[in-house]
């Protein structure tokens, strides 16, 4: 329904019930493949996937992810990686969540009807003068290919730094910066998540041997059914209502993470992932 993989919620929950962090993260990305495949297929039938723009976003996201992985390596060497990750999480979730919540609530109060695409930001000015201007008919926008590639690259960097799929940043970015309709943003995000998580699952399986296929299938069974129901429920909701729901989830997670930063932890030791 939201176009996010849910990794930013599910991995901590798995860790809370006693699954080792490495296993939780890797198995989660495997189950996201199942969930996003199911969600993408459902959205494809509903005409909500912009394959052309999704491919550009995917390439940008992968490039940004590569940069992010090396950035986090440098931050770890400096000993500030964990602080950077947590603070980035809180700031990004807080900013994007609060903006989306306020903006959508305002639109609902003003009585906006039906999903309304945001005006394309590249209609005039600097962005319209960028090379490789392309029409993305499914998303009803015209942009230089460089814009979504660059923006997805930034999200990829953030996603790699934060260790998540990045859907919760990507969807708001698609809506507010690329001007895509909410439903198409959700479907297109699931499309690119499918490929990203398939790559991550393969790498985790070959490098760390931490993919638990049985656990992933059990989780995947739940998430695929949820994705189907979500894709259909999303059609019945106003796009502003979906945005408010997503923003609420983001703000709850942000508050929980901010609490983790400010409140004294019960246990001061956290197992190191990948060990």
């Amino acid at each position, binding site marked *: 329904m939201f176009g996010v993989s849910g990794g930013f919620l599910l991995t901590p929950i798995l860790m809370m019930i006693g699954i080792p962090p490495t296993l939780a993260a890797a198995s989660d990305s495997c189950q996201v493949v199942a969930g996003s495949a199911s969600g993408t*297929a459902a959205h494809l*039938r509903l005409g909500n996937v912009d394959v052309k723009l999704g491919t550009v976003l995917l390439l940008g996201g992968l490039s940004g992810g590569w940069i992010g992985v090396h950035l986090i390596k440098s931050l770890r060497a400096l000993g500030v990686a964990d*602080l950077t990750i947590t603070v980035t999480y809180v700031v990004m979730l807080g900013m994007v969540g609060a903006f989306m919540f306020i903006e959508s609530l305002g639109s609902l109060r003003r009585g906006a009807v039906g999903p309304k695409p945001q005006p394309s930001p590249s209609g005039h000015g600097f962005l319209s003068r960028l090379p490789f201007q392309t029409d993305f008919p499914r998303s009803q926008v015209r942009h230089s290919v460089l814009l979504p590639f660059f923006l997805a690259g930034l999200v990829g960097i953030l996603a790699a730094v934060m260790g998540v799929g990045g859907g919760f940043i990507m969807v708001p970015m698609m809506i507010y910066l690329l001007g895509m309709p909410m439903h198409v943003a959700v479907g297109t995000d699931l499309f690119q998540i499918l490929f990203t998580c398939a790559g991550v699952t*393969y790498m985790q399986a070959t490098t760390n041997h931490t993919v638990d*296929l049985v656990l992933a299938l059990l989780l995947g069974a739940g998430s695929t059914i949820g994705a*189907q129901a979500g894709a259909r429920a999303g059609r019945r909701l106003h796009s502003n209502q979906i945005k408010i729901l997503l923003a609420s989830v983001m703000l709850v997670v942000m508050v929980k993470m901010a609490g983790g930063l400010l409140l004294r932890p019960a246990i*001061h*030791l*956290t197992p*190191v992932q990948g060990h």
Partner: protein
Amino acid sequence: MTALSLWAAAAGTPPPGVKVTPDVVRMGAFYGGATVRVEGARDADATIIVAVRGPTVTEVFNHDGRAGFLWVNTAKVTISEVPSLWLVFSSERVGACLPRAVIDQYGLDQAALKKQMRIQCQACDQGQIAEEYLNYKAMQGSYRRASGDFRKVAASAAGVSDPSFRFEFEFPRCATPGEYQVRVLECRGGEVSASLEVPLRVVEVGFPSFISGMASRHASFYGMLSVLVALLAGLGIDFLAAQLFKRREAANLKSR
């Protein structure tokens, strides 16, 4: 000679007077812990201690500390010379029946474990880290200590001379496959009058065993298989959902 010393005489084979059931814990797809029974003979005035120990491991942690008003990871901590699993059960309080030196020798309480563990970290309070580690393992269910609950049973039930004991404990679900040791100590007069170890194997069986074997031996194939299976599962459920919703929509149209 005590009952346990008689068992100890038969080194290398399961002692005739003590029985650990099952001797192999099998972790299948739906493994959620197992009940392990230890039974045997003891002298009337003896205290029995059952200590279960997993393989010795090294673990790496991030340690949280304060940076200004924020709690963040401030150091990397490596803890070694610790058992992956540590369970101690006794018919009386361990501290009441054995002196400190003996408790340390057999690693029968948290203080003994603290003395055995090696902690590597820069500028950290090792005592606090050790305490934190024990709390972490206790919360995880891997470290546990309890007194009492050693039931006396009829001689015929245990198959050994009177008086006998039987004790059952829950082998935790968080345990990993490996070679574990169940040590049974008979204590009297402030010393260990007999001690013996019975191995307890924990193995993966069935589908989990097949999967973990493939994951380590054919990692690349396993990676591709994981993606493919997840993809097919997702598309399969999408297909089923599409059929289901199509039928519902058709039924709705008919009813109109």
